[in-house]
């Protein structure tokens, strides 16, 4: 850690806040004049000089009243954060490349509302929140993802300038929150019916014989299955449609690490597996997963799909 980093560490005493609800105390809240505040202060100095020069009694009074307003504004800006209770929530997994959202519940126990709160895990994606008097609100702090695996919520900056905008008060929150990031699915055709070798077939949805209707395309669906005409007819900006057939034999697949091209990088191979999992799930197949050192027996359903994706997300080759 560089010197500035160490200094910040010392000054702000960054440390994890755990998962418990957290109440903002005065030790956590920092406050400095904002740019508008500096402009205001400059205007006050010029006004004071003017009042002195022209000996304006009420000019003095006005400048002093405005100075008092600035001080009161500072305390109220601090007050806008002070005593706020933040409770971390549970985070839904996302695919790498999507934005992860970390839910936080903000609880205002005061009778005055708290307006214009800004939360940001990264400077690029701030979100705003306002809590009514004695109210509660839920916010979802966005964070872009790149890598599969666990994504811990970094330090969140909770800032406000309300009411007068002359000061910026902020606090750093570091609740123990993490989001599972699945590998970004790579669209690839499902491995051929080697699956059938593994046993009995059942009749059900997702077959390939009788046309049964359309369904929206999912990332793992091959472009070859897109019903282009129907998609064009349907609407310009809707998702592409896939023809669905009924009555096919429901096969049992084993999605195997070995079936992916070993020349590809690990993450791409995992992405292909993730795409297969999604495609198989969408097709209603029973599928299993075979990774080096890990195997998941064929099954289907949401829970199974998530288990598979989690295994892929956390896979260590």
């Amino acid at each position: 850690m560089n010197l500035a980093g160490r200094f910040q560490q010392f000054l702000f005493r960054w440390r994890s806040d755990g998962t418990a609800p957290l109440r903002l105390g005065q030790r956590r809240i920092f406050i400095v004049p904002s740019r508008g505040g500096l402009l205001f202060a400059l205007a006050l100095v010029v006004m004071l000089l003017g009042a002195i020069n022209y000996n304006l009694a009420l000019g003095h009074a006005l400048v002093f009243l405005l100075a008092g307003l600035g001080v009161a504004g500072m305390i109220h800006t601090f007050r806008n954060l002070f005593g706020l209770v933040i409770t971390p929530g549970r985070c839904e997994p996302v695919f790498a490349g999507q934005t992860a959202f970390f839910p936080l519940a903000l609880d205002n126990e005061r009778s005055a509302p708290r307006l214009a709160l800004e939360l940001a895990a990264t400077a690029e994606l701030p979100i705003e929140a306002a809590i009514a008097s004695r109210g509660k609100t839920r916010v979802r702090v966005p964070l872009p993802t790149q890598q599969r695996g666990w994504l811990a919520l970094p330090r969140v900056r909770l800032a406000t300038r309300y009411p007068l905008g002359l000061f910026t008060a902020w606090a750093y929150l570091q609740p123990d929150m993490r989001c599972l990031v699945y590998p970004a699915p790579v669209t690839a055709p499902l491995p051929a019916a080697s699956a059938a070798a593994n046993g009995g077939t059942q009749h059900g949805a997702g077959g390939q014989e009788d046309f049964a209707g359309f369904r929206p395309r999912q990332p793992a669906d091959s472009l070859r299955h897109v019903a282009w005409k129907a998609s064009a007819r349907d609407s310009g900006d809707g998702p592409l449609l896939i023809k669905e057939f009924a009555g096919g034999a429901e096969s049992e697949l084993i999605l195997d690490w070995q079936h992916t091209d070993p020349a590809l990088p690990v993450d791409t191979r995992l992405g292909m597996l993730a795409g297969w999992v999604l495609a198989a799930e969408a097709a209603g197949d029973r599928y299993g997963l075979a990774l080096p050192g890990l195997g998941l027996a064929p099954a289907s359903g949401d829970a199974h799909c998530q288990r598979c994706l989690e295994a892929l997300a956390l896979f260590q080759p």
Partner: protein
Amino acid sequence: MSTPARQALDRQATPWLFASALVTIAPHVLHQAYWLSALAGLLMFWAIRLWWKDERLPGRWVLFLLVIVGCSGILIEFRSLFGRDAGVAMLVVFMAMKLLELKSQRDAVVVVVLGYFLLLTHYFYSQSIPTGLWLLFALWLVTATLIRLHGGPASTTRASLRYAASLCLQAIPFMLVLYLLFPRISGPLWGLPSDAHAGMTGLSDTMSPGSISRLAQSADIAFRARFSTTPPAKQKLYWRGPVMEQFDGTTWRLHDNRGTSPQLETLSAPLRYEMTLEPHNQRWILALDAPVQLPEGLNASNVLAVTQRLPVTERRRYELAASLDYRFNVDEDPRALSRNLALPPGVNPQARALAERWRNSDHRPSAIIGQAQALFAAEFTYTLQPPLLGQNGIDEFLFKTRRGFCEHYAGAFVFLMRAAGIPARVVSGYQGGEFNPLDGYLVIRQSDAHAWAEVWLEGQGWVRVDPTASVSPTRIETGIADALPFGEPLPALVQWRADWLRTLRYRWEAVNNAWNQHILGYDPQRQRELLSRLGLPDTDWRSLATVLGIACSLLVAAMTAWTLYQRPAIDPARRLWLTALRQLARRQVDCAPWETPMAVAQRVREQRPELAETFQNVVDAYLQARYGKSNNNLNALREAVARLR
């Protein structure tokens, strides 16, 4: 303001900015050039229209062109872009123009800060109570705008205004502390622009027919005086202003008096009084005749005109004293006497002839003065609307028109005296005043402006003779409102005779005077007095800064403590329940915090059976209020608890 989305200005917030601009610009309409108000109004109207139609704001070039137009207009009007009035005009134009450039939150903040700045500029022109109140209102609105800007739509109109009021109220203690303790620096820090003190009324340093009657049509207050004892009778109140010794046929002028100091022999005990002089941008102080024991900084010339070194450009207080009976310059310099006998050659031959006749019939000065007074008393009319006079003005006045105001009488009288060989001169100033019984101040207005004469008599020195007193004795004894017939162009304020109106006026003026004395008149001197009364004598700016720092820190600490101390939210049902438990404790039934209401009821049944039924009602009502379905059970609980007492 990190992302473009946040920087953009909320459309619903814009009307707030229009309102702020309007309330901060509006009072300037009263005194600035009409075209400036029209330009500002037009720009604002345009901005509002664009907002209403949700159209695009004008481009950079249009704004640039507008800046050029505004600046050149100001240059033509004021011959400068700087200075007080030009500066204010620039601020007004920029404020109006900024409304056409409201794109981001930052522009809006600039409008608000400009608004605060514009508030200050109003005090250049007026610091009266109405101005103060209007500006307080404007401050409130501008602050609410700031809150609305930062709070977003969640901050409703009502909430913004309430919050702004609360913040302004919380700022007031700081203002008071700073106002009282901030080290006051008197005097300008840098050279004031030449227009800094424009537009002040008062006596001028010349006198010609019409100059005082014009002034007397103003009800503006010239100064106030407060005597430590009861004020003397009105006819003794001659407030001495510039003394004019040179006459060119129409206009009386000052003579440059230097050197010798006046010899004043007082015949009565000095009368002490405090004078609060309104600014009139001249050097003279209208001291009561004859001024004695001048405070430091004031000088009396050898014609007994009291002056200070610099013009009076702001309201000032003086501690003065006067001796109403005096002998002045009994041994006058012969040069001064000959100066006061000089007359321009050729003019007013009839007046000269008349003086000659008087002198020939009886050469004693008292007889000549008596002749003149008798002349005025017989056939002359006292009026604010005298006819215009030509080349031989005094002749026309004496023998033809015979209507005039005090400057006509004083001028003609002095002319006659000089022609008759008596040294005489014109003294201008104010006469009388109105006593306000509510605050004990004597108020002297411009309408009390007056001119009288002074003649030099052997052995008596300069003696005041007021020819107006011969024409209209009521003018001197009761005041101008009674001396003039109805229909003269006197200010309405002075003419009000109805008692309730007069009382109202007295009250208003007393309030104004208190405002002037205690709030506007708070200067380094008063600050020192106040601090020494608080037990801090001999303060310099260092000790002041220390006291100020301590006071402000205490205020901040108090506000912070108030913020940190947050009462836990407690619901009303629980509060009533706790009241009930306190009632039980008074009857020796103590309850542990973990006991449920049911358990407490059980214990009451065992320990105080006579209370059991009443308390059971409380428990039922409490459980109903806290856990029942309907939420309107509080009253039942409240009644049940009340019965417990």
